[in-house]
C-alpha cells in the first residue's frame, strides 16, 4: 500500500495550543492500523502541488507569526490549497488556519484583511476573547457524539452560502457565540475553533478524516479497520465530566 501523506502546513509558525496533537493523532491511529504514514512539513520555502498530500492540516498561530505566513499562504501556496480543497483533499484547519481559508478577517479596529477565499465564511475580530473548555455535538454515521474541545479566539466567524457547521455548541461559544454553530464543512475541508488538541480525545473525528482520505486514495469501497478507542474514550469521559461538573464531579 502507498504511504498516507499528511501535509502539516507552516508547523514552525502555526503551532499554538497543542495543534501538533492533531497531526500526532492522525499519525497514531493510522500507524496502529498498519498504514504507513509520512508527515510532510510544508512551510515557507517548501513547494507543494495538488496530489502531493492526502490530508492537510493548518493550525493557528500568534499574530506576529500569522503575519509572517499570511503572504506566503495567499501569494505562493494559495492557489494550490484552493485547488486541493475543490478537488476534495481532506483538510482539518483550526482557528487561524480556519479563518484564513475564509473571505476576509475584519479586525476590531475596522481594518479588513483579505483571506484566501477558499471557503465562503468571514470573520470579525472583537475585543473579548473566548477562552473556555468546550463541549460540542457532532453527528457521525447517524450517531450523535459529544466532543470535548478548548477554544481560545477573539474572532467571530459567520458561515456563508454552501457551508455547513462542523458541529453544534453545547458549551462554549463556537463560531461566534450567537448562532450555536461551531466550525465549518465544505467538501472534505473542516474548519474549527477547537484547539485542545481536538483529535486525540475525539477519535471518531480522527477516524472519519482518515477514512475520507483513504477512500479518496483507494476508492469508495475502502473500509477503515476497527481500532479500540478505549483510552481515548476514558480520557474524553474524564474531561467531559470535569467540564460539565467541575472538579467535584470529576473526582
Amino acid at each position, binding site marked *: 500500500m502507498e504511504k498516507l501523506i499528511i501535509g502539516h502546513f507552516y508547523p514552525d509558525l502555526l503551532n*499554538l495550543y*497543542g495543534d501538533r496533537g492533531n497531526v500526532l493523532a492522525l499519525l497514531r491511529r493510522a500507524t496502529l492500523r498498519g498504514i504507513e504514514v509520512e508527515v510532510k512539513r510544508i512551510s*515557507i520555502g517548501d513547494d507543494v502541488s495538488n496530489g502531493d498530500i492526502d490530508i492537510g492540516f493548518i493550525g493557528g498561530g*500568534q499574530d506576529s507569526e500569522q503575519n509572517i505566513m499570511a503572504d506566503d499562504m495567499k501569494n505562493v501556496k494559495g492557489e494550490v490549497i484552493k485547488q486541493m480543497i475543490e478537488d476534495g483533499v481532506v483538510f482539518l484547519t483550526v482557528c487561524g488556519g480556519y479563518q484564513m481559508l475564509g473571505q476576509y478577517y475584519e479586525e476590531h479596529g475596522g481594518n479588513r484583511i483579505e483571506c484566501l477565499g477558499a471557503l465562503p465564511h468571514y470573520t470579525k475580530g472583537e475585543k473579548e476573547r473566548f*477562552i473556555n*473548555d468546550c463541549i460540542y455535538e457532532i453527528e457521525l454515521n447517524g450517531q450523535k457524539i459529544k466532543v470535548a474541545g478548548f477554544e481560545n479566539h477573539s474572532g467571530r466567524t459567520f458561515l456563508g452560502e454552501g457551508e455547513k457547521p462542523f458541529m453544534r455548541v453545547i458549551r462554549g461559544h463556537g463560531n461566534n457565540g450567537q448562532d450555536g454553530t461551531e466550525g465549518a464543512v465544505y467538501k472534505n475541508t473542516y474548519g474549527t475553533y477547537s484547539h485542545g488538541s481536538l483529535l486525540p*480525545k475525539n477519535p471518531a473525528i480522527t477516524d472519519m478524516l482518515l477514512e475520507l482520505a483513504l477512500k479518496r486514495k483507494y476508492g469508495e469501497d475502502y473500509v477503515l479497520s476497527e481500532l479500540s478507542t478505549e483510552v481515548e474514550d476514558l480520557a*474524553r469521559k474524564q474531561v467531559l465530566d470535569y467540564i460539565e461538573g467541575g472538579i467535584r464531579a470529576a473526582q
Partner: protein
Amino acid sequence: MGLKAPAKAAALITKGILRVMGRGATTMPGKVAIKLCPDIISKCARGKKIITVTGTNGKTTTTHMITSMLRTLGYEVITNVSGANLASGIATTFLCDKPSKGADPDKTVYVLETDEAAFARIAGDLQPKVCLVTNLFRDQLDRYGELTHTRDLIANGIDKTSAKIVLNADDSLVASMGKTRSERATYFGISLKTMIENNTLHPNKTILEASSDAAFCPDCKVRYKYNARSFGHLGDYECPSCGFATPSKRFELSYDASGNPSDEGFPFTMTDTVSGKACDMNLKIAGSHNLYNTCAAVSAVTRFLESEQGSEGGTDIIGQVCRAQDNVEAAFGRMEKIAVGSKYICILLVKNPVGLDRSLSFVAQSSDADSLMLVLNSNTADGKDVSWIWDVDFESKVNDLPSNIYVSGQRYGDMMLRVSYSGRTVDGYGTLEYATTLLKGALKDCPDGKCIYILPNYTAMLDLRGRLVKELKLKEFWKD
C-alpha cells in the same frame, strides 16, 4: 517620609494578622502597602543594591543560585520567595524582610525574581544594578500574549534603568534586546563547539518535531539559519536577511557532550572570553537546563561584583564566583530528593512546554529513575488551558522514560492520553485524591536507592505536597 511609614506599618500589621491566621504572608502585606502608598517600591528601593532576574523559565533556580553565591562571597542577601514575583511580592520583601542586625548596607544585596510583565512596570522604581534575562519560551500565552510582546515589555523596563544587562545569547528573542543597548549588554551561553558535539552525539530522533518558538526573525520575517541547537529555540542562529546572529558571548559554558548532565556533579567549564580565564566546575543542581541557569547566575554575579569594584573584566572576579558556586545546593523541595525509607521521591515543578520538555529529558537520562508521575491541574494559577502538553515532544524521549508511568491531577485524562499517544501506556491513573495511593504502590515496587520522579504543574504541586505530609507522613520538606 510621606506615606511610607504608615504603609510599612500597615504591611507589617497585615503580615502579623495573616501569620496568626496561619496564612502565608508573601504578597498581601505588599498589596496593602501599595494601596496606601503607590510609590512604596521606589521609596524602599532607593539606595539599595538590586539584581533582578526575569524570563519565562529558570527564574527561581537562578535567583536561588545568585543568592547562594553572593552569601558565600560575604554579602547579606535579601530575596523574594519563589512565586511572589509580582509588585506585591516584591513590596512585601522590602517591607517585611530585614537585613540581619549590624549588616553593612554596602554589602547588602536584594536579589529579586521578577515576573516579566511586572518587570516592565517596576524596573524604573527598582533601579537595579544588574538585570538578568534568562530566556523567553511560550508560557501561558492566554495570560501573557505573544512572546515578542513579552520581550518588548522587558526591554521597556530595561530602558527605565541604567542597569547592566546580562542576556542569554543563545535565545534570539532575549539577545535581540542587546541590539540597541550594546554598551551595557553582556552575553552568556553554551559554546558553539559543545552544541555541535551534542547535536552530533545525540541527534533528535523524534517522529514529529515539537512546536517551536521564534523560528523566524521577527524583523525580516525570514527563518533563522541554525548552525547548532541546544534545546527549543536556543542555539547558534543567524538571520540570512539582516545578519542578526548569536552575539559573541563573554561568558561561555562548555562540557564534554559524551557525559550526562543529569548526573549530580556533572563537570563543565566556564570561560570568560575577555580575560581568557577558564574555571572547571561541577553542576550543583543536575539537568541540562541548569547548565544555562548556572551560566546565567555566574555571569550576573560577576557583572555585579565588577560594577561594585569599578572594573570591567580582566580580574579574577569570575574565579571567585565560580568557586562560590560550589556551595550552591538544590532549593528546598525543588529538584531535591526526599528520602522515603530507603527510596526517594523528587518533585520537579513544570509550568510550560519547555519546562516539561527539559524535565522529561532529565528523567529519561537519570540513572536512578524507577517511576514517573505526571500531575496536571487546570486551575486559574496553572492556566485553564492544558493543550500545551501536546506541544511537547514526548515522542523523542519516551523509550528512555522509566518503566512505570502514572498520571494524576484534575486533568489526568488529558495526560493519560498524551502518554498513550507517545507510544506508552500508563500504569495507574486518578485524581489527586488517589495520588498518594498510586505513590504508595509505586514506592512499594521501587527498588532501594531508586527514585520516583513527580512532575506536577503549580496547583498540583501545592496540593500534592500537603498530601505527602498528611498521607505519606513526610516531614514538611519545602520552604517557600
